C-alpha cells in the first residue's frame, strides 16, 4: 500500500489503512517516545495518545512535507505534553548530578549499540534529556524548544550543553565512543 493510499484510506476512516499506517510508523515512533519517557509504559502511553491524534488530525496534513515528519512532530509534541501533564519536569537537572551517575552494566543491556545509546540518553536527568532529544535528534531550534518547554532560549542552550557533556562522559565510560584527543580543550571551555 502506498503512502498516498494509506493517507486516503485514513481520511475515510478505513481501519485497514489505519492499521497499515500504524504498523509502518509505530516502531520508529515508539523509539522516539521511549527516549522521552521515564519507562516503556510511559512511552507506550505517549505513542497511543500520539497515534490517536494522528488519526483524528489526519485532515490537517497538507502534503507539503514528509508524511513521516508530520507524524513525528505530532508524536514529539505529544511526548512533551505528556511530560508536562504528568509533571515529570519537576526533577532536578543539576549538572553536578552527572558526576555521581553510576552506569551499571545491567541497566544498559548489551544487545545493540543503538539501544545502548538510547539507554545512555535515558540515564540523563529528564530536563537534559528532553532538550538533547529535541535539539540533537529531532532538529528543533533552541527558540522552538524554549517555546515548547516554557523556558528561556538561553536556558535551553545551557541545558543542552550540559546534557551533551554528561552524555559524552557516559558513552566514554561505557566504551561506546573513545575519548577524543580534542575533548580536553572542549570540555575545559564548557566548564569555564
Amino acid at each position, binding site marked *: 500500500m502506498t503512502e498516498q493510499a494509506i493517507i486516503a484510506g485514513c481520511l475515510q476512516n478505513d481501519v485497514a489503512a489505519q492499521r497499515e499506517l500504524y504498523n509502518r510508523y509505530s*516502531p*520508529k515512533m515508539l523509539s522516539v517516545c521511549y527516549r522521552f519517557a521515564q519507562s516503556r509504559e510511559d512511552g507506550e502511553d505517549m505513542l497511543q495518545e500520539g497515534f490517536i491524534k494522528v488519526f483524528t488530525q489526519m485532515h490537517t496534513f497538507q502534503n507539503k512535507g514528509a508524511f513521516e515528519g508530520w507524524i513525528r512532530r505530532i508524536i514529539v509534541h505529544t511526548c512533551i505534553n505528556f511530560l508536562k501533564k504528568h509533571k515529570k519536569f519537576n526533577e532536578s537537572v543539576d549538572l553536578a548530578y552527572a558526576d555521581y551517575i553510576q552506569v551499571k552494566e545491567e541497566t544498559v543491556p548489551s544487545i*545493540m549499540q543503538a*539501544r545502548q545509546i538510547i539507554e545512555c540518553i535515558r540515564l540523563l536527568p529528564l530536563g537534559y534529556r528532553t532538550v538533547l532529544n529535541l535539539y540533537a*535528534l529531532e532538529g528543533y531550534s533552541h527558540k522552538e524548544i524554549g517555546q515548547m518547554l516554557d523556558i528561556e532560549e538561553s536556558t535551553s542552550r545551557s541545558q543542552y550543553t550540559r546534557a*551533551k557533556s554528561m552524555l559524552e562522559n557516559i558513552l566514554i565510560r561505557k566504551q561506546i565512543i573513545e575519548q*577524543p584527543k580534542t*575533548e580536553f580543550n572542549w570540555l575545559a571551555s564548557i566548564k569555564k
Partner: protein
Amino acid sequence: MYQDELEQFLQDEVKDHRMYPSDKIWRNINAEVNGHQRWPALSFISLFIISALTVSTLLNINPSQKLLKANSLRQTDPKKLPLQDLKHSPNDFNATAPSDLTANTIANLKRKGNPLEPDLTGLEETPVIALDFSKRAEPITISKTQGSHSTKPALVQETAIVIPMGSLASKELSLEKLNFLAEMNDQATMSAGNTTTESHEQEVVLQTEQTVEPAATKAVKEQQPTDQFLQDFAYVPPTRIEKGKNSKFGFGFFITPSTSYRRLTDDKAKDLLGAAPASAPVGLNYTTDVNSIVRHKPAVGLELGFAVLYNMSNRLKFKTGIQFNTRQYYIETFQASTDITTISLVNNRGVENMSVFSPYNNNNGYKSTQLDNKMYQVSIPIGFQYDVIQGRKLGITAEASIQPTFTLNKSLYLLSTDYKHYANGNSLMRKWNINSAVGINLTYKTGAYQWYLGPQARFQHLPTYSNKYPITEYLMDYGIRLGFIKQLK
C-alpha cells in the same frame, strides 16, 4: 569528539532504531478512533439467554399455584373474580350429573336417616345447588317460603350457583367434589349474608353424604388415582411437601466439541532481537505482526470429562473432576530441503542461539504441506456452578473453573525466530499450564438426571512454550458442552 560529530553520531545510530509496541496499544487506538469492536458472540449469548428464559417461563406454569391464588382472591371478593378464570375442561363435571347428585343424596339420606333433619321430604323442595362454570359465577338469590321446616324461618333467602343440567352426565360424584361444591356454595352464601340456619342445613347435607357413603364405593375411590378434576381444582395448601433428602453430592459426564484458536505475540522478540541482525537472525518481513506472517488455521478439538459436584447451597455447587482435552490447529507451510534454522532464546545471560534442522519452510518449498499442532492434555477443573434460574424442568446455570493442566504429547512445531522455518518444539514445550473455562448452560431435568447444553470457552494462561522462547503463544477453545449430572440419593 567535536560537538557536531557527537550530534551526527547520535543521529546516525538512533534515527533508525525501532521498538515494537504491544498489541494492546493498537487495540486501544482502534477502540478510541473507531469505537469498540462489536463482539458477535455477545449477541448470540444474549439471544440464547433470552430464549432460554422465555421457554423456561412458559413451561414452568404450576396450575395448583394458580388455583391457590384464584381461591384466595375469590374468598376475599367473590363478586370480582369470575370462576371461569379457573382452568377446567367441560368434562370435569361429567362424572356426576346434578340430578343424580340430588337423587343419590336424597336416597342416601332416606336410607340412612339424618338425625339433624326432622323432615326429609322437605329436601325435595330445597333449592338446587349447582354450578355453572361456563357463565359468570355471580351468586343469585332465590326467595321462597318454607313453612314445613320447623327449624327454618318462614322466609329464607338462599343463594346458589347454577350448573346447567345438560352439561353433566356422569353417575358418580366423589367426596372431594362434594366438598368443593359445598365450599363454593358456602362462599356464595356467606357473601349474600345468609342465615346461620341455612348454613347449618348445608352442613347437615354434607355430613349426611359422608356418613351414607357405601363402603364399596369408598374402597374403589381409594384405589383410584386422583382424577382430573382434583388435579385441576384441588386446594393445595401452601405448606411444602417433605421429600426425602438428597445427598449433597452429585456426579456427571460431559463432552465438548470445540474449535481451537491461538494468539501469537512477539513483542519480546522484537524488543530484544529486532534491531540486532548481527546477533540474531531476523527475517526480512520482521517489521510486520507475527500473526500476518504465519498461516494457521483453527481446528476441531474435544473435551471429555467426569465431574463431581458438591451442593454448597441451594444454587451454588462446588465442581471438580478430571478432564481430557485435545486441542489443535493447523499450520500451512512448505516441504523444503532440510535447512539449518535458528531459534533465539532469551535468558538472564542475554540471547542464545540454537541451531536446529528443519524440513519445513514458511515461505517457499517444493510442496505445500500442513502440520498439525495437536496437544493431548489432562486437567483438573476446580470451580463453581451457579444456578441462575431454577425451573421445574428447565433452568440456566453458569460455571467457571481454573484448570491445572498437564500436556501429555510431544509433537509440536514452533516458528523459528527468523520466522522462516518450523522446527520441532518439544524441548521448549511447557508441560504444566493453567487454563480457565467459563460457560453458561441450559439445563433440563429428566428424573434423577439433569442434562445441560451450552457454550463454553477455555483459555490458556501461560504460553505454550518456555519463557525463553520469545514468541508467545496462547491457546483458546470455544465449544458447545453437552453433559448430564446425577444427584446422589
